[in-house]
């Protein structure tokens, strides 16, 4: 092959690559605009939960604000029953939805406290994922990241773990993975078109999943990989500010706020490496030193891996244990609150 032939070959390959990339990016953007239109207001899952709160016929005493771990892991009816059994009946409501982080959760708190059914106690979930700024950028940088990734992000906000399971199974089957493939798959699933199938009862989803899809280690790793290794784990100040703001909002509304951590399976604990755990612990210590109540954690040994339907989301059995366990610190908080008001009244 002489010099001119080589030049011609490279010119053709260059033009080919250029045309291909430009077309792919353009179509990506078109799909993003056509199939995934903007939703006015706040993001999808929390907005629906706030609407559900507004539709209640009485004020809740307690609301739970967390991500999918709490959406699946807390059964308010069980927590209420446990509180009633201990002589302090309550009515609680779960505002948790999939894919939230501290920014989202604080926004949910703000909406809940400003609503006609403002709660007296807010239970606010904290976990490494909830303080992860990288997750935040994925959730909030929706329009700037690109259609494909946008699809996956919006989809992640739906607590539709049926799709999650299938994607993860796909990973286990092909042993290959990338954002693009996840996102294309999510796009193909019509990420935003699944709203009518949205189930407000986490227990319903868990039963569905538990009966159908007991996942294996490789799949659990796939989920972990997608959640935590999408990008570098990072905790920025604005995340901590969101937690501080939640405390301030509660104070201003004369509500109590309690922070709690959810249990994790042993597989999940292995996934969160020491550096992530250390950064998370340091952030919590910083907030505690500023006056934040130390997050409550369930007693060690209460859960086993059979309580989870994947690496980190609880089955109904796990949700039952967790909901009963969390009743105790809630009762303590409410008792302290009543004591303080009586002291003030006295």
């Amino acid at each position: 092959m002489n010099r001119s032939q080589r030049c011609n070959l490279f010119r053709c390959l260059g033009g080919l690559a250029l045309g291909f990339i430009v077309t792919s990016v353009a179509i990506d953007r078109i799909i993003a605009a056509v199939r995934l239109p903007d939703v006015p207001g706040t993001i999808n899952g929390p907005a629906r939960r706030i609407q559900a709160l507004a539709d209640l016929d009485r004020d809740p005493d307690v609301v739970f604000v967390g991500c999918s771990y709490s959406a699946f892991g807390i059964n308010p009816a069980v927590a209420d029953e446990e509180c009633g059994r201990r002589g302090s009946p309550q009515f609680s409501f779960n505002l948790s939805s999939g894919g939230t982080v501290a920014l989202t959760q604080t926004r949910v708190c703000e909406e809940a406290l400003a609503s006609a059914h403002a709660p007296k106690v807010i239970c606010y979930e904290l976990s490494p994922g909830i303080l992860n700024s990288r997750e935040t950028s994925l959730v909030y940088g929706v329009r700037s990241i690109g259609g494909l990734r946008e699809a996956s992000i919006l989809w992640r906000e739906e607590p539709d773990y049926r799709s999650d399971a299938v994607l993860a199974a796909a990973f286990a089957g092909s042993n290959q993975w990338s954002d693009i493939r996840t996102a294309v798959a999510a796009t193909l699933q019509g990420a935003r078109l699944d709203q009518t199938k949205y189930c407000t009862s986490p227990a319903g989803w868990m039963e569905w999943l538990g009966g159908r899809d007991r996942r294996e280690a490789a799949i659990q790793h796939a989920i972990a990989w997608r959640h935590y290794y999408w990008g570098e784990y990072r905790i920025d100040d604005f995340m901590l500010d969101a937690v501080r703001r939640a405390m301030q909002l509660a104070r201003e509304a004369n509500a109590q706020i309690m922070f709690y951590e959810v249990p994790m399976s042993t597989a999940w604990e292995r996934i969160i490496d020491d550096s992530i755990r250390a950064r998370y612990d340091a952030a919590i210590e910083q907030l505690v030193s500023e006056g934040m109540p130390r997050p409550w954690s369930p007693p060690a040994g209460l859960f086993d891996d059979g309580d989870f339907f994947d690496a980190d989301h609880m089955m109904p059995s796990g949700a039952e244990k967790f909901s009963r366990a969390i009743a105790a610190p809630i009762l303590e908080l409410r008792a302290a609150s009543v004591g303080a008001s009586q002291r003030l009244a006295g």
Partner: protein
Amino acid sequence: MPPISLSSFVFVAVLLAGYWSVSGRARVWLLVLGGWLLLAAYSPIVAIVVLGLTATVHAGVGWMRGDGTRGRLVAALLLVVIGATLLVARGVLLAVAAEGWRVPPVWSAGPLMPRLAAIGIAMVCFQAAAYVIEVYRGGHGERSIADVALRTSFFPILPAGPLVGGRKLDAESIGRATLTGEDVLAGLLRVARGLLKKMVLADTLAVFVDSVMASPGDFSGLTCWFAAYAFLLQFYFDFSGCVDIATGLARLFGVELPANFDVPLLSKSPREFFERWNVSLTGWLRENVGVARWSGAAAILIGALWYGQSANVLLCGAYIGVLLWIWPKCRLAERTTGISWLVTFNLIALGGVILRCPSLSSLVEFAGSMFTLADGPVAGKRYFALCAVCLAFLAAARRLPSGRIAFLRRPVATGVLIGLAVWALILLSPGVRDFLIGTTFAGA
């Protein structure tokens, strides 16, 4: 290794890189080795058979040179050996496929590997037989084992052809070939076109055809007519898509394959249809076997016989015979072009129904529903629209002067077209999830 998968693409890319970094005999053997490896990946039995057949044909062809009687005898013996190989391999493949005494048809939804292995071994045997006949008829000079191996193991053509004869595929020209930018553009574009035909059009139509063929009694007569047209188009896009992929791949290896289809669906008589369908085999039969008038029908029947749906094939053969015999007497060809095309298209679609129906009883049920215009839900309007669009596109593309679309051969335009094709595959192909992710999405 699945034929359309990331691993097979990587394999081809590595093979291409190696292929163009060497020259001469090394390049030829690399290509042959690639073919053997792919065959072994489909089925080790097929690879062993191909190796044995290649050695036998090479040795046999060496003995053919000499006086005429010995040449005739050896050629006949070789053809018997090739025929026997075909039958034995078919039997073995049937055992592997475990689907009874029937090779899974191209359009069936069964396991892909036995299907491809089945088609592959058939193509190897056709290529070997063609080579023997060409040598016997004096079409070749001195030929090495590399030439024979190349003819029997050139992997792009094994899944679906086309049949490559003469000097289009010889070791000497391959060893000297150079890769040009135009080869890359044309090759990739052809592969993309083939993938679109196969994975978007054919696979989409297959969904509809399969559901109607499975229980024709549940659908209206009109739907059955839609399904008949859809199957004809599915068959065409499936076959010609595979050939396009082969032609594009071959171009990337510097080999220019002959055209295999001349828009047969726009034919205005059955004979014209058969002459424009599987042109390479038809042409070869015409030149080397001397069945000029019936070459097209013979080519179709050879393919149909391989798949072995005995009763349907016999009926289809009889139907084709009647068509070819009766058509000139009807003087339809003298009527307007539109009418002759319409009648031809419908007649061929009926032939397709005969071939496609899984049994005679289902054929009777299907035909009954078609011709009585049975009541029932009319389904498949979207598929019918898709068929109409495809036909209109074929007609428009045939009439478009090549000068008008010269700009599409520029590098950037080709990149745009390939980008569009890839996205069409991603978004429209029913099999895309298998291809991209390796599983089916239950919630999709």
